[in-house]
């Protein structure tokens, strides 16, 4: 009985990590499509979203099956509920990656804006957050997960700076409004991805320590 449960849980972890890998890849490609102006990668992201959607459904089904069959308790139950939430978050991240890819297609077709935008850094931090939150899930590392939550502020700051720069540009140069708007939306999406990565990290903390850290600032940030 427990042998079966452990096996099913291991397979479930495989599935959610595999899905995480796909989502990471989608985010990575969307970023490169935007920064390196590669429409081919953007189209790949849009095309492969279906696979991620399917794998979301599969993970969900697997979770419900385990819940119904084994009625797990304590750590196992927390694991499954966390996986269900992480699954949902990952799927939304993939959707955001698709949105960024669509913006990227428009950005690629226009002349580049010569503005001091920090998409490279923003996306690097965000992808690192996503990666670390999944790594935290792999190794049940609550410390790493808490660390991910702390990094969200940097992404927010960059996003705000993008707003300032791009809105000013739209005022001064109405011709570039389309591109600027696409970039602005992309920046928002990236910021949103970072938020979802934070959610995943919070779920990992809950899974490992049975402590809910959502909606409370971390003690360290309260001091600031």
């Amino acid at each position, binding site marked *: 009985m427990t042998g079966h449960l452990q096996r099913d849980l291991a397979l479930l972890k*495989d599935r959610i*990590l*595999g899905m995480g890998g*796909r989502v*990471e*890849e989608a985010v990575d490609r969307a970023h490169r499509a935007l920064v390196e102006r590669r429409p081919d990668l953007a189209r790949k992201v849009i095309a492969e979203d279906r696979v991620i959607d399917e794998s979301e459904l599969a993970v969900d089904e697997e979770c419900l099956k385990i819940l119904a069959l084994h009625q797990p308790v304590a750590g196992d139950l927390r694991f499954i509920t966390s996986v269900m939430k992480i699954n949902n978050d990952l799927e939304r991240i993939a959707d955001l990656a698709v949105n960024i890819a669509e913006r990227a297609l428009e950005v690629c077709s226009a002349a580049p804006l010569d503005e001091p935008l920090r998409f490279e850094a923003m996306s690097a931090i965000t992808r690192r957050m996503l990666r670390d939150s999944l790594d935290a899930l*792999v190794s049940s590392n609550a410390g790493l997960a808490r660390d991910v939550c702390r990094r969200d502020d940097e992404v927010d700051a960059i996003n705000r700076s993008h707003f300032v720069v791009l809105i000013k540009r739209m005022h001064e140069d109405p011709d570039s409004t389309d591109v600027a708007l696409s970039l602005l939306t992309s920046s928002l999406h990236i910021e949103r991805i970072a938020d979802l990565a934070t959610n995943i990290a919070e779920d990992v903390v809950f899974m490992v320590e049975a402590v809910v850290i959502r909606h409370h600032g971390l003690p360290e940030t309260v001091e600031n």
Partner: protein
Amino acid sequence: MTGASRLLTRIERIALGFTWKVFVGTLLVVLVTTVLLERQVGTMLAERRMASIQQRIVDDAMVTSSALRDAMASGDVARLRELVRGMGEHLEDRRLTVIAADGKVLADTHEDPALMERHADRPEIKAPGTFQERYSTTLSREMMYYAVPLESGGRKLGSLRVALSMDDIGRDVDDVRSAFRTGALMALGVGLVLAVVFARRIARPLRDITDFVAAVGQGEYGRRIAITTHDELGSLAGALNDMTDQLVGRALRIAAEVSQKSAILAAMDEGVLAVDAEEHVVLANDAAVSLLNADPSIPGGRRLAELTRAPEILELAESCLHDGRRAQAELSVPGPRGGRILQVTAGPVRDDDGEMAMVVFVLHDLTEVRRLEKVRRDFVANVSHELKTPLTSMRGFLEAVVDDPDMPKETRVKFLDKVSQGTARLGSIVADLLELARIEAEQGRFLREPLFLDDLAMACVARNQAEAEMRRVRLVRHDPPVPVAVRGDERALVTAINNLLTNAIKYSPEGGHVDVRTSADERGAWIAVSDDGPGIAKHEQERIFERFYRVDKDRSRALGGTGLGLSIVKNVVLGHGGEVSVESELGRGSTFRIRLPRAPRDEGEAPGGVAPAGDDAGSSGGSEPGDDGAGGGSDSRGADDGASGGHPEAS
């Protein structure tokens, strides 16, 4: 705590151990033997004793009766009594009684006959020759009686009765029995002591063997049993020692093999990763971990998805486990500088039953291959473009001249002049390409002549002086007080320095100045060429050494650059074991630095003969036969190359 537990185990060992079993066994054997023997022997002894006593009684009766017969026959009672009393003194424990035929007691050894009752009805008297046991009221103890008739001439005179106390007989038997018991007790004691001693002598080597086997089992491979006996235990110990030798030898061989294999795996550039049928990671070498950007603490026992989430690898694992076929995929791992491109080959491994046992992944890093492919593609495209551009314009001018015979002379001369410029340009590109090809081919096979860097700098400055003056650029040389000695190929180095110098002059504004500085420190010999031109942006500084790479394409071509000069510099310097670097900021000018390994100090004086030759740049190529003999095929071309390599832009 440990003392108490040790005592407990000791007790347990004794209680359940070999010694205890032998002890109890011996005890039981001795006890049973003793009891049985005692009973058997006691009974036998009692019977024997009885028989011998009866015999003695019979003998006594015979002897005594013959002695008493006469006195009895004569009827002399007094004499009879005297005889009997006399005998009684010799016969200690036996009692003699003489009874008349009518039953009256005539004489007795122990009693006064007058006080004794008639004995006619006593069974022994009635049945002479039989033994009777009965309680004697006279003596108040259990007695055995035997009687013989006293006869004389066929007439029965009376009876002689011999009696013996049964107690005496019983005491004898009891004595024997108790002696037997004492002996048995002693035997038991000695036997038990011996049993314990023997048991311990057997048990100790057994315990040693047990300890030894346990120790070897826990990895004390150096341990052996000391063989103290030559019995079965000794040979068991010997056999165990031999077995351990063999096992340890085998284990060491296996360990050596394993460590050798893991060393091979660790040394491989290719990543090797193996997962079992359940997708647990069985093996992952360092290369695999670093290629996949994986957490190095994970491999071994963890699942594949925990090691890497790359969808391509997870899919390969699944499909390979499912189909059992080899499969290949290419994946990009995100990371700094555009990440890596990996080629992953998954191969199934089946066990003896043909079931899928493992999937082995081999990861090749294709990043460099892909980059080189791109460089080559770009190069071919660039060469074609660079060659085609002047050709196109030349053809245009030539066609114009050919098509229009009535063209004014000035226009025709102008057009033909353009064509001539074009051929010169093509010539310089081809010359640079040849130079580059030659340097790349000679990479590492440059001459190692002793040279002074200052002389090379001087030669190049002299060669470019005219061009500089024409562009109103001031050329300034800064030499250290002590000449800097290096070893290298003079012609190649002059070409390299010359290329830097012509570039610097070309990009300097009118009235600017170019500094050429030679120096030496512990890291090597340096020559730096600085200009106050437009400078090079940071992100382009890495690429300017690539072939045909130009920061500003139009301007560069207008200035007559082939796009190959810096590439030649880089190849020459690398071929000399040095390095070239650029330090620049937009609008602040650029400084190119060449670092070369210094010649050993004691050779500092050696190039004295070459130095004067270097003074005159024009003659340096031709005047040194040794140089050309080793460096190039033809004299004239060599000298030409030396000049054109430096002045392609000037022509």
